[in-house]
């Protein structure tokens, strides 16, 4: 894995078919860099959001129950101290806040961001990966074979750097 290739395509369809050939030929490890999402897959973040939201709502509810029943019971017109329907709005808001915070920070944890520098930034073409070229970075021992596989897909650009 001592050579890096960075290959750019003009359309997501061209990248798609090239990815299929590259995977079939097993030329090395590949990672795509694209201006639109091309590959679908699952993510852990929604699960974290659910857990965060439920825990936040429970915590909010328990805090209110503790304050009104034990820490500072106030008789308001003879209503029960544990007047749980009144605790629902804040429990909900607290759950939402926890869910959004989990989602936001969970995203950065899941993607290992912020990361201002990555070795792929050395490729000139990387400057266009968030603009108008659908790119794939390949690390391989056999750059010649990778180029042969790619030839059929008419890439817009190919760059090579020792990895």
């Amino acid at each position: 894995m001592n050579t890096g290739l960075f290959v750019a395509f003009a359309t997501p369809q061209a990248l798609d078919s090239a990815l299929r050939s590259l995977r079939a030929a097993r030329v090395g490890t590949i990672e795509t860099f694209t201006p639109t999402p091309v590959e679908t897959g699952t993510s852990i973040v929604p699960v974290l959001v659910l857990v965060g939201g439920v825990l936040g709502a429970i915590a909010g509810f328990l805090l209110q129950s503790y304050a009104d029943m034990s820490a500072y019971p106030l008789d308001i017109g003879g209503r029960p101290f544990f007047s749980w329907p009144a605790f629902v709005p804040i429990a909900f808001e607290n759950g939402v806040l926890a869910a959004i915070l989990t989602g936001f920070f969970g995203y950065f944890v899941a993607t290992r961001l912020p990361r201002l520098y990555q070795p792929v930034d050395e490729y000139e073409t990387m400057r266009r990966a968030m603009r108008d070229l659908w790119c794939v970075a390949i690390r391989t021992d056999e750059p010649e074979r990778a180029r042969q596989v790619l030839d059929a897909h008419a890439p817009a650009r190919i760059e090579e750097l020792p990895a």
Partner: protein
Amino acid sequence: MSGIPAPHAFDPVVLPGSNNQDLTDQVCAIPLRRRAFFWWWVAITPFAVLTGVLIVGILYLFYAGVGIWGIDWPVAWGMAILSYVWWIAIASGGTFISALFYLTRSEWRSSVNRIAESMTLFGAACAGIYPILHLGRPWLFYWLLPYPATMHTWPQFRSPLLWDFFAILTYVTSSVLFWYLGLLPDLATMRDHAQTRGKQVVYGVLAMGFRGSSTQWRHFKATYAVLAAIMAPLVCSVHSIVGLDFAGAATVGWHSTQFPPFFIFGAFLSGFATVLLLVIPLRRLLRLERYITGRHIDVLCRLMLTSSLFVGYAYIMDAFQAFYGSDHAELVEFTEKVWGYYSGIYWSTIVFNVLVPQLLWFRRVRMRQVVVLLISFGIIVGMWCERYTIVVVSLHRPRLPSAWGVYHATIWDWLTLAGTVGLFFTGILLVVRLLPVISMFELRELVVPRRTPP
């Protein structure tokens, strides 16, 4: 208009002939300009001055106290609270567009959601300062937070006013995070587009290293969708709780179960009106007619008309409940609202929010941008009048005739209101100057078809 035809209701979401390169270059070029547009300076100057007025108003308020405002018994909630409700409705409207219509997969949302979300951000900022200013002792606002106080006291969790504090706190935080997360891919594009070192560093740091890798996109799509799905019920809850602030009190004119949905209808209406008010001038000034087409104006106008019918229904129910119920005080208050001292404000509400928007039934009216702007502006004024009616008119006729009174806003009330308008537009103009006003990565998916047709 440089070869772009007049908008038409049957325009596609993106005009034919658009491509990704042009889209990216054009949208990036706006914030990356070395010098701002001349019109930008013309526009921001008065609003920046008004923001200064707001600061002066707040400083004088902190020095002199809320006595400088018109509030007194029986009208103890005045301009601060009604403007708070007015702003939070405008803010909520932006979230409806960006979150609710994301979930419905509406294609038209992609071009306007950045503007709508920015509107949410600054609308919420304007709203958020009011309740704190309205506190007689604003430096004690942290008493609303549940914290282990040395006097072992806790906030009153059974009060809608406390729910509101939590709702606004959650809403402002979530709006900022949702807005920023949605900006990440576009900030990365800006970083790669920037020519000078300074801009590359600033946008690069803000983009946090987003590169469009498959992992980043995969998590991004999932996270954004889930957050949108949470934002939609959140915004409904926030505005319902604002409604409960009123409905929870046994005050004449407030104590009504229709308040939470009624307030949400109002949020829809003012949100669509404000978005149109921003989108129509911006598409022209920034030459974005290609991406914000007649289709967008048409859809937003239809939604505005629908919300106008919703609030019309709520006004009818408001009248119905006064006569259907047997409470004499409610009848007195309603009669006073319709025929009394403040009746001009009530009828302005009806005219601006319900009657004038009926013009939008006609497609030709919807495509006349100046007319749409005027109707939208009328709605913004009408919504303000509606809040005035709810807050002031209800309070000035309590149950005991001996407690009746009249409220007038003072110059400081008006200056503070004008100041928040300045703050709002200053914020929007800063976004226009510094950030891409169109969500490029979302629009790209419309411009670049994912799959070629077989």
